[in-house]
């Protein structure tokens, strides 16, 4: 494998940051070499510097896409961390459906929009689809529920969209009973069944770019992606996510992540042992104000 120089790392990490927001530093030399080395060789390039130059100057996005596919970490599994899916089943979906049913009518059925903001190869989206199917069963088609999965990697989105998984991907997180119920054998692996596939749409989207045009969502999953960004970009991302969340919507982040000190627009809430986030309903230092208010009144009473 071709060795990368510190200067090449500087150039390439700058480039990768520009096109994806993914922050990589000098400690990641092995990552550049193992992931981008094959690209350098395959394109017959002299070195990593030339790869960077070629990618920046085009023509087209082919090389950029190949670099993003190679450098993004698509690690994911079905029912990852389990907690969020239990939360969905036991708390979020029942609450949302109750709230929405009150407002719904015969003509306008209950509608829910759920977004997996970095869905990688689709396991998160299909895990949500399975929860929906199991919770609502034959009532499912009485609701208008739309799942959207987006990711910056073309290759990941293509796989998510096909809904095909190899033996090892299936073995990670998917219980046997769910496998036989919701997948059918395809080639050497498995393919998600059509009714579940039909609940979801997948498309490429870079979270560093504006996404307000997607509209409002009732539930947003943004798990294990912000950790690849700089603290400043993380903050901005969650600020913007606050903008696409319905007022009573839910945000779910990764098990090792926290918005404490990152985005004051969200309040953490707890259900059993799971944490989720909702938009603040009151001004952020509500408690402090109410105390100031009460002391003020008391003081004026005694005066």
């Amino acid at each position, binding site marked *: 494998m071709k060795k990368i120089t510190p200067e090449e790392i500087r150039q390439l990490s700058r480039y990768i940051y520009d096109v994806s927001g993914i922050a990589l530093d000098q400690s990641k030399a092995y*990552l550049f070499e*193992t*992931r981008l080395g*094959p*690209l350098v*060789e*395959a*394109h*017959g390039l002299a070195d990593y510097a030339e790869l960077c130059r070629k990618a920046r100057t085009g023509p087209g996005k*082919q090389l950029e896409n*190949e670099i993003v596919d190679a450098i993004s*970490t*698509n*690690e994911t599994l079905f029912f990852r961390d389990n907690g969020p899916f239990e939360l969905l089943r036991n708390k979020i979906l029942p609450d949302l459906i109750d709230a929405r049913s009150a407002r719904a009518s015969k003509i306008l059925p209950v509608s829910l929009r759920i977004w997996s903001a970095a869905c990688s*190869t689709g396991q998160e989206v299909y895990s949500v689809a399975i929860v929906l199917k199991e919770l609502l069963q034959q009532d499912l088609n009485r609701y208008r529920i739309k799942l959207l999965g987006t990711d910056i990697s073309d*290759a990941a989105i*293509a*796989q998510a969209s*096909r809904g*095909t*998984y*190899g*033996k*090892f*991907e299936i073995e990670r997180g998917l219980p046997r009973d769910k496998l036989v119920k919701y997948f059918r054998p395809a*080639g*050497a*692996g498995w393919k998600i069944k059509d009714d579940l596939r039909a609940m979801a749409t997948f498309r490429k989207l870079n979270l560093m770019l504006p996404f307000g045009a997607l509209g409002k969502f009732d539930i947003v999953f943004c798990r*294990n992606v912000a*950790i*690849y960004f700089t603290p400043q970009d993380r903050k901005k991302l969650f600020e913007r996510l606050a903008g696409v969340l319905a007022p009573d919507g839910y945000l779910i982040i*990764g098990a*090792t*992540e*926290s918005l*404490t*000190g990152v985005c*004051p627009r969200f309040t953490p809430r707890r259900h059993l042992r799971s944490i989720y986030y909702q938009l603040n309903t009151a001004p952020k*230092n509500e*408690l*402090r104000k109410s*105390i*100031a208010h*009460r*002391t003020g009144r*008391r*003081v004026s009473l*005694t005066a």
Partner: protein
Amino acid sequence: MRNLNILVVDDDPVTRKLIEKKLAPAGFSITLAENGRRALEHMGRELFDVVITDLMMPGEPDGIGVLKAARKKSGYTEVLLLTGHASVDTAVEAMKAGAADYLQKPVNFHELMIRLDRIAEYKNLSKTALDLREAMDVTECAAAETIQELELRAAVLQDVLHKIGETLRQTDLAPDQRLAMVESHLSAAFTEVS
């Protein structure tokens, strides 16, 4: 499973088309080349997971030439050879030059699929292994930061609770005075954590 990006090289248009017709619906993305020269052009532009090439082709480079070019470029691309009956010996030679496997013509598509699925599984696993390592590194770092941040806040809250407790026990002070002190503790804590 990940899509394989496949280059098919054969001077026979029927074989080319047939392979495309069988593989494209299975989710593989297919590029066709009618000779070795065109194959090298494609390989210069794009990264292929697999090159399937006829061994005996007129002109230069032939199948062996395509194989050698692919091997020279990168260890990443796997090469499958298609051979006629007569050229099995050459095929065995080619395996020594680094081909992943060879198939006899006419192509048995079931066999070809099995070979491709195996390559896909293998490529998938090596990507998964790499990703797992990086995901672990990044997650660990992020978790450490999160824990530190939360510990800090827990300490501030603990501290303010302690101070409030003490204030409440100061029964010699007027209720309003105590309330004012509680407020000042709280507001100091809020400033510290935000």
